[in-house]
């Protein structure tokens, strides 16, 4: 009968079908190419180089053999393990009780402590180390000067240029990781779980040990692992505090290879491997812990305000809880700001010594700092945007299971999480400072390295935004006639908008304060704030370094406040969407 209209409809549909698949294929190929350049290529070169001899350029296993044979290569590994273990233990011992006090008790000033712990989170730790040099350098550190004046002793109370000093500084800036993980686990735990124990006659302490602590144990373990990784991979703090006394850790030893002439490229590649192996293993352990037992138990509703009463212990608890805010934020910030406002910091903070000279110098007079400020903002802006675009595309493909290769894409964008920044720096240097892609000294190289480093954050951000948008909202658009691309533009993108801005800022902030990834890649023309501060510090002009650091801290804090503002807006919108049954 009417056989021709259906036939033609079928044919046009099949054309659309093919076009639609061609589009998907193009997107996939572009994504794979970009990820190959950003991730596979740099890591591939590390592996390739590690099996080559620096002198002859031939295939060899000698680099690996040397790591085991030579004490000068063994010692930094040992030091790193010592540092990481100590950092993990100390930040767990500080962070877990801190989280419990803030989340569960009636300790005073909880809001203040939470805010300042978060401030420690966004403070680049190498700037913290700088602050502590001002405070506790053996001769000129203010605390030691004060100590000598008060006690009349001729020896310093504190020596920050030591393993102990390094452990201390790394730990106070790592506590926020443990704190955040454990306090959110405590807050998300339904209050009924504890109430159930209480109604069965269990006392406060008994409930804490038999219900609360086992339930947050995965968060504690994950916090321990992340702290350990921090201790292994931090570069700035040991470079500032340990290198002057000649003690090296893995990251600073890697930097040393690059200071040789010619740089020991191939040896450094092999030396990256133990670091990657350890972080890889630890992330695997973290995954296992999180996979086996979800500590974010069901029902994330806000807890009723039933707090454990500390009674006479409130002040003791407060003194303990103030330790991290004071040592990680108040003291170093005060020191840095005061020095940045001084003509010469040796003269001490007296009115005649105060000046805005160094800020004027950094912003208006000195071309290097001007360029670094602009570079930091521009590179971070571009890198964060690229990160989010790739993150969204991959998350969309994975969440909506659009392509068969989705798992591979997800694995690729997640790999950098196990690669310490300094190793990625080595990788990008190896891959892109040779023909045919010699990008050394270009902005592109640094931006690409930033993108690769922060892809995992961008991807997980985009993923969590997409999880909040029910696929049915998209299917509804498809079923009334919208193509995949049109659906993304008209439905998905507008619904993601609030979350995207917040996600962008959450990538932008860590890029602004990132030092180790950029360290081998910058040239005088492409210096960013962090690398400039790192280089100036060697010059010993502390007033200028502090002014630049204060500017970086100030810029970061503004962006953080902005992020908070936007995130809360997005959370509000998500609640609205959830109340519509949009979120599953």
């Amino acid at each position, binding site marked *: 009968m009417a056989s021709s209209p259906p036939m033609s*409809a079928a044919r046009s549909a099949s054309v659309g079908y093919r076009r639609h698949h061609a589009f998907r294929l193009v997107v996939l190929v572009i994504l794979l190419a970009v990820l190959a350049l950003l991730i596979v290529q740099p890591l591939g070169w590390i592996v390739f180089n590690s099996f080559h001899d620096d002198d002859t350029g031939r295939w060899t296993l000698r680099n690996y053999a040397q790591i085991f044979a030579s004490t000068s290569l063994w010692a930094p590994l040992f030091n790193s393990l010592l540092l990481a273990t100590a950092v993990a233990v100390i930040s767990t011992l500080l962070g877990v009780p801190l989280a419990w006090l803030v989340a569960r008790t009636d300790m005073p000033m909880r809001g203040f402590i939470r805010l300042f712990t978060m401030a420690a989170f966004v403070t680049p730790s190498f700037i913290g180390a700088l602050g502590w040099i001002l405070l506790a350098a053996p001769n000129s550190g203010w605390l030691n000067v004060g100590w000598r004046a008060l006690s009349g002793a001729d020896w310093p109370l504190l020596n920050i240029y030591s393993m102990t000093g390094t452990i201390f500084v790394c730990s106070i800036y790592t506590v926020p990781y443990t704190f955040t993980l454990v306090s959110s686990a405590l807050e998300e735990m339904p209050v009924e779980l504890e109430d159930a124990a209480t109604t069965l006659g269990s006392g406060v302490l008994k409930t804490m040990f038999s219900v609360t602590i086992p339930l947050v144990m995965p968060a504690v373990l994950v916090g321990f692992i992340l702290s350990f990784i921090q201790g292994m991979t931090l570069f700035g703090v040991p470079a500032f505090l340990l290198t002057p006394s000649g003690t090296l850790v893995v990251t600073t030893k890697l930097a040393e290879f690059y200071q040789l002439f010619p740089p020991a490229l191939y040896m450094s590649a092999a030396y990256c491997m133990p670091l990657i192996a350890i972080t890889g293993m630890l992330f695997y352990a973290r995954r296992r812990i999180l996979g086996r037992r979800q500590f974010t138990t069901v029902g994330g509703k806000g807890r009723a305000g039933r707090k454990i009463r500390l009674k006479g212990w409130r002040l003791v608890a407060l003194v303990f809880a103030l330790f991290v805010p004071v040592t990680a934020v108040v003291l170093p910030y005060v020191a840095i700001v005061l020095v940045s406002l001084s003509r010469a910091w040796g003269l001490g903070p007296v009115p005649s010594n105060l000046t805005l000279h160094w800020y004027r110098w950094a912003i208006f007079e000195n071309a290097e700092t001007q360029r670094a400020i602009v570079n930091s903002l521009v590179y971070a802006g571009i890198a964060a945007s690229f990160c989010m675009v790739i993150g969204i595309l991959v998350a969309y493909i994975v969440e909506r299971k659009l392509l068969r290769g989705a798992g591979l894409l997800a694995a690729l964008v997640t790999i950098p999480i196990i690669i310490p920044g300094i190793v990625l720096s080595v990788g990008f240097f190896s891959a892109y400072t040779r023909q045919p892609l010699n990008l050394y000294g270009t902005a592109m190289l640094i931006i690409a390295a930033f993108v690769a480093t922060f892809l995992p954050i961008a991807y997980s951000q985009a993923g969590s935004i997409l999880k909040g948008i029910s696929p049915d909202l998209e*299917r509804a658009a498809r079923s*009334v*006639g919208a193509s995949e691309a049109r659906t993304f533009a008209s439905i998905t993108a507008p619904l993601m908008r609030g979350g995207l801005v917040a996600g962008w800022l959450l990538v932008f902030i860590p890029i602004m304060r990132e030092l180790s990834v950029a360290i081998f890649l910058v040239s005088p023309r492409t210096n960013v704030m962090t690398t400039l501060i790192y280089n100036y510090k060697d010059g010993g002009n502390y007033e200028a370094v502090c002014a630049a650091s204060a500017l970086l801290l100030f810029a970061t804090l503004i962006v953080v406040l902005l992020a908070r503002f936007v995130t809360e807006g997005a959370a509000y919108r998500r609640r609205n969407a959830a109340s519509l049954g949009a979120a599953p």
Partner: protein
Amino acid sequence: MSDIDIRQLSKSYGAYQALKSIDLHIPDGALLALLGPSGCGKSTTLQLLAGFDTPSGGEIRAGGELISSPQRVVPPERRGISLVFQNYAVWPHKTVAENVAFGLKLRKLPRAELDARLSKALEAVRLTPLRERYPFELSGGQQQRVALARALAVEPRILLLDEPLSNLDAHLREEMRFEIRRVHDELGITTVYVTHDQGEALVTADEVAVMKGGIVQQLGSPEDIFERPSNAFVASFIGSNNEIPGRREAPGQLRIGDTLLHAEDRSGLPGIGTKAVLCIRPSRVRLGEAGGDANMLNGVVRRSAYLGEYRDVLIEIAANTNVRAFVSPHIRPQPGEPVRVHLPPEHCQIFAVPDDAPAS
């Protein structure tokens, strides 16, 4: 408008067979309910119809045109099939009018026609006064009607409804059943309605397909399904039911304890002496009446519950064998009291023992 022809459609997810070769024909303009417990394959069927998934075998034709087969799936936006979701999926960033007009805008209609069709769709679901509202300002029932108007505005040839009422409260649900039927009668669009609620299926549908384990157990009119179920599963899934196990002595005769019961034999079992079940609705069981000699049993009242419109009585007729009876509320049997139970043969049906083993 068009009919739907589903032939030998199957879908597997790895080793799990969600659909095992189903055949269904839905005539042009009909309303078919796909009814079954969760995991029965009804939602899989709907996803395949909408074009969100690729079948593992078989094909779907709409109006004669092949729209789904393992080789080729026409994308959802090119099928002319609208879908209404369980969670409404009303876009929170668009007003009621914008939600409904979205599909029309995609078709680049002239302004006047777009407005006319938008108004008609809003009118059909009685949402005209709320057209400028945002979804979060609407109740669940109103959001569901936005979803319906949005699906209807594009004048689809087929409308799919995926458990559209399950998120509404009981009162509204009852009202919306009739609303959906009314809209269907006005527009006459071929409609597939997926639900696990037998009440919804019986009220709204011309035909009901009862599914279980990826197989269509029975396809028939609501009366057929209720009065003449094709097996014990269908009998128990639709409405309340007694399943009394016994031994089939002869066609139409089932022995329970030392009583021989007469019933319509729908078991299709070959031999005699095999295990079988006798099904009867509790509302058809009579108590304490002399209904002749046939199918009379002695029992003891175990439980009696007053439900206002009727009384729900549980009677033990043999060891581990109970019968439920819905009787007039003025009859007041007491627990422990002996009672005569009458199972009228015209309401009794014999079926094979239901296969409750997990589908393999």
